[in-house]
């Protein structure tokens, strides 16, 4: 069996290179793989494009990457939350590029990439600023816009339990973007809260099969 387990987050993120595009799981503070984003900060990897729902909470996760100057661009749906103060400073100073994507379209562009599709048609955004430059198609009398798949070099995933194959479960609404991102990136890096033996997770309960997971560590984040 391929050895996917590493001792610590620094070893897990070791392949991450300057200029990489990285998906980061989470919704607000929930389900963010902070041990992995912190490790990237320690490695001081620069010029990153981050794909995530938000642009960091307080001074944690993506906000720490922004503070350190590691981020060149953010692709997200809700960057200017009250608690995203670091993003606001960096964006208003012109230091970070923003691509705003409706949340459902963001999730589906990621899913589409993971499923090997060339794009999808959606009514979301028709007639708005966010549809600028996108092809319109009429299907059964309704107008849709074409959205393209969203690829990434890496996905950073926060899981609840993991077994040696890399099979994953998630905890409550910390699931959010994590399972779809795990299908869409070239290399999938995981921090899991608990480690179990092979066979210990009921196959009916596995959300992400281990075939998607490349490198992981156990990190007991506070619940």
């Amino acid at each position, binding site marked *: 069996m391929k050895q996917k387990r590493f001792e610590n987050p620094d070893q897990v993120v070791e392949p991450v290179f300057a200029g990489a595009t990285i998906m980061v799981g989470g919704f607000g503070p*929930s389900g963010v793989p902070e041990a992995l984003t912190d490790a990237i900060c320690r490695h001081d990897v620069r010029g990153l494009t981050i794909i995530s729902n938000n642009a960091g909470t307080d001074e944690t996760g993506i906000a720490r990457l922004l503070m350190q100057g590691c981020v060149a661009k953010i692709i997200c749906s809700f960057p200017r939350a009250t608690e995203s103060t670091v993003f606001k400073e960096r964006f208003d100073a012109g230091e970070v590029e923003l691509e705003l*994507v409706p949340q459902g379209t963001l999730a589906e562009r990621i899913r589409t990439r993971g499923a090997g599709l060339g794009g999808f048609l959606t009514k979301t955004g028709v*007639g708005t600023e966010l549809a600028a430059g996108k092809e319109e198609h009429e299907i059964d009398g309704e107008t849709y816009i074409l959205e393209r798949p969203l690829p990434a070099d890496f996905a950073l995933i926060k899981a609840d339990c993991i077994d040696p194959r890399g099979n994953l479960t*998630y905890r409550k609404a910390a699931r959010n973007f994590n399972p779809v991102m795990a299908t869409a990136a070239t290399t999938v890096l995981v921090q899991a809260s608990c480690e179990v033996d092979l066979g210990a997770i009921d196959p009916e309960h596995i959300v992400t099969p281990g075939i998607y997971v490349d490198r992981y560590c156990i990190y007991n984040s506070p619940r």
Partner: protein
Amino acid sequence: MIADAILAHHLLDRQQIAARVAQDLEDDWVVNIGIGMPTLVPAHIAAQRDVILHSENGIVGMGPPPKNPKDVDPDLLNAGKEPVTLVTGGAYVHHADSFAIVRGGRLDAAILGAFQVAANGDLANWKLRGRPGGNVGGAMDIAVGAKRVFVMMTHTTREGEPKVVEELTYPLTAKGVVSTIFTDMAVIAVTPEGFTLQETAPELTAADVQDATGAPLIVADDLKSISV
């Protein structure tokens, strides 16, 4: 028109607007709760009711905020990142499935905040004029996906500008989607003929509401006083 100071005294507060919205949610409906003022609505749905609340971050069967601080769970938050609970029989789904629920027509209603609503039902709620960036979140997906969009907002801006308007001057979220507007002054239905004033806050007249509105109001024959 009554004096501004007296008018302010007669406006509904946020909890009263939330209580009024809750009255229009029917049992067995699946209802999305958006960020901002809509997050106040769940607390006003009586315990014996069976409205299934959806939160965009993958919660089907969202319950009210935990009563006991020890039950706060950082992995169980609403769209506004505030602690909530899961009802018995609730479920978690990932984000792509959560928005398949949204766009797939499974939401009987969505409750959203807004900057402006136009007479044709156009909604603006994601970006202020002239502000770079914006905060779209799930608003565009939910607005086009839900069978009914209930907007919950103050009737005017802090500067007193109408938010119920003839045509949008803020960037569009979705065209022709709003069904009903619940404000601190009134309940207004969006109809093919335009805005129809159905209810006013107690002590306010149809003329008071019209004065604070940027488009003509058709006054319903059975105009009522909001009761919460």
